[in-house]
C-alpha cells in the first residue's frame, strides 16, 4: 500500500525538510502489532459480541502482554476448554464475562487469572 502524506503545507519553491522521511509505505503489521511475540490471531464464530462490533467470521488480534483490566474485551478459556471472546468485568463480587447481545447471559468465572488467554487489541471485520 502506497500512501503519501504531506506533513505540512509546502510553499512553492522551498522543499519541506521532512520530505525525505515520508516515503515508506504504511506498514499495517507495525501499526497494528506492537508486540509480535505476544500477539496471536484468532477467528470468531458466533454472534454474542455484535454490540461491540465483533461479528461472526471476524479475526481478532489478541495480545497476551496487555494487562487484563475491567472493561476490556478478552479471549478466555472456559471450563470445558472452549475459547470464548467476551468483555471482562471485575467487580467486588468477582469476575464476570459479559456478552454484547441481549440473548446471551453473562458468565461468572472463578480463578480468573488462569482463565484469561489474552486481551483483544483489534478486530478485523471484512465488509
Amino acid at each position, binding site marked *: 500500500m502506497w500512501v503519501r502524506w504531506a506533513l505540512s503545507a509546502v510553499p512553492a519553491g522551498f522543499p519541506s525538510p521532512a520530505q525525505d522521511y515520508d516515503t515508506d509505505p504504511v506498514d499495517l503489521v507495525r501499526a497494528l502489532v506492537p*508486540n*509480535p*511475540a*505476544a500477539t*496471536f*490471531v*484468532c*477467528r*470468531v*464464530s*458466533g*454472534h*454474542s*459480541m*455484535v454490540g461491540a462490533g*465483533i461479528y*461472526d467470521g471476524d*479475526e*481478532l488480534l489478541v495480545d*497476551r*502482554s496487555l494487562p487484563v483490566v475491567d472493561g476490556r474485551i478478552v*479471549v478466555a*478459556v472456559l471450563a*470445558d*476448554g*472452549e*475459547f*470464548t*471472546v467476551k468483555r471482562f468485568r471485575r467487580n467486588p463480587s468477582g469476575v464476570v464475562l459479559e*456478552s454484547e447481545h441481549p440473548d446471551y447471559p453473562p458468565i461468572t468465572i472463578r480463578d480468573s487469572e488462569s482463565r484469561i488467554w489474552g486481551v483483544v487489541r483489534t478486530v478485523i471485520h471484512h465488509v
Partner: protein
Amino acid sequence: MSDSSSRVRQVIALVDVSSMYVSCERVFQPKLADRPVVVLSNNDGCVVARSREAKDIGIPMGEPWFRVRANPKWRSTIARSSNYELYGDMSARMVQVLEGFTPHVEVYSIDECFLRLPAEPGSALATAARIWERMAIWIGLPVQIGIGLTKTLAKTAQHHAKANPELGGRCDLTGWAPAAVDEVLASLPVSDVWGIGGRLTARLAPLGIHSTLDLARADPRQMRRLFSVVVERTVRELRGVQCIEFEPAPPVRRELMHGRMLGQPVTSWAEMSEVISVYAQTAARRLRRHRLQAGSVTVSMSTSPFRSGPDRHGTRTLALPIPTDSPVEIVRVALRAGQIAYAAGYSYIRAMVMLTDLAPAGSQPHLWADPDRPDDPIPTLIDRINHRHGHGLIGYGAAGLRRHRPWSMRREMLSPHYTTRWDQLLDVTA
C-alpha cells in the same frame, strides 16, 4: 569446585522450555493440560515428546506409537503428530522475548537458548524470574532457567531446577557457596552432563566417575588423553572456566542438510536411491535459495534402534568435482556416495543428505572451469515451475514423480497450524 572469582563480569543462563512440543500444543488446546500427552515423530512413528503425566505413567521416550496405543496402562494417552510449523513459530517468539532482556542470545535449539547476563549478585536470578513470567504470560510456555559461570554449569543448574519444582523454574549456581554447588553436582549422574552420552558414561564408570562432581574433579589432561579434548573442555567448564564459545550471531552457514525419518523402512537400493535423489534435490534447492554452492556431499543412513535386527549406520562423503549448486551434479554425487554407504540386508528408517564446504554462489571458479560456458538455465526453470505450480511437480529422475511414496510422511493427528496459516487460526466462540 567452582571458581567464585569476583572478577567475573557475566554469567551464562540457559532457558529451556519444558516438554516444548507438548507445551506448544497445550497453549492452543488447554484441555490437554494435566493429562498424559505425547507428540509423535515424523510419520507418527515414535514418541519424541512427553508431558510430565505421560512420563509419570511410564511411557519411555522413543516408544513406538503402536505400542503405546495397545498398552492398557497407557489408554488415557493423547497423541499429536509433530507440528513443526507451530513449534518453530513459538520458538521464534521465545527468541524475541529473550532478546527483550539482552542482545546476547544464542539460539541453541528449538527449545533452548543461552543468554549472557551481568554478574552483579542477585541480578541474574531476578532477571530469570522476569523471563519465567514473561514466557508464561506472553507466550504460554513453561521454562526452566539455569544460571552458571559456564554453559555446562548453566545446563547443570537447569537440570537441578527441573528436578526441584520448589525452586520455581530457576536456579542460579553462581550465587551458591561452593559446598552447596558440589552437593548439586554430586546429585546429578554424569550422564546428565551436557556432551556426555551413554557410551562415555559407560567408559567413565570404571574410572570411578559416576556423578557430575566426580567428573568435575577429574584431571583435565588425563581426560583429554583417555577420551578427547571435548571431554577435557567439559571438565574445565564444570570447574567454572569458560571453554565453549558463546555464539550470538549465527555463523555463516557451514552445512546444509535434509534428512528425515522414513515413513516405512527401506530395504532395497532401488528405494534408497529414490530417497537420496529426492533429498539431494531438496538440499540443492535450499542451497540455491541461499545463493550458495557446495563443495562436498555427505550421505548417511541408519537403521532403527527400536526394532529388532542388526544395527547399521552408513555414511560417506564425496567431493563435488567443481563447487556447484547444480541439482544434477549434486544428485549424481549423492547417489554415488549413497551406493558406497548402503549395505544390503538392513532395514533403514532414516536417511540424510548434507552439503558442506559452502561458499557464495559463483565464487572462486574452479581452476578448470570454463568461464565461457553459459549458466545452466534448467535448474532455475525447474525452481520457477515448482514454485508456481506446486512443490515437487517436476524434478530430475525419481523426484519428478508426485505419487505418494510409502516412505513420505504420515501425520494423522496433526493440530492446526494456528500461527502460520490464515485458514487454520484458533477458533474463538462469541
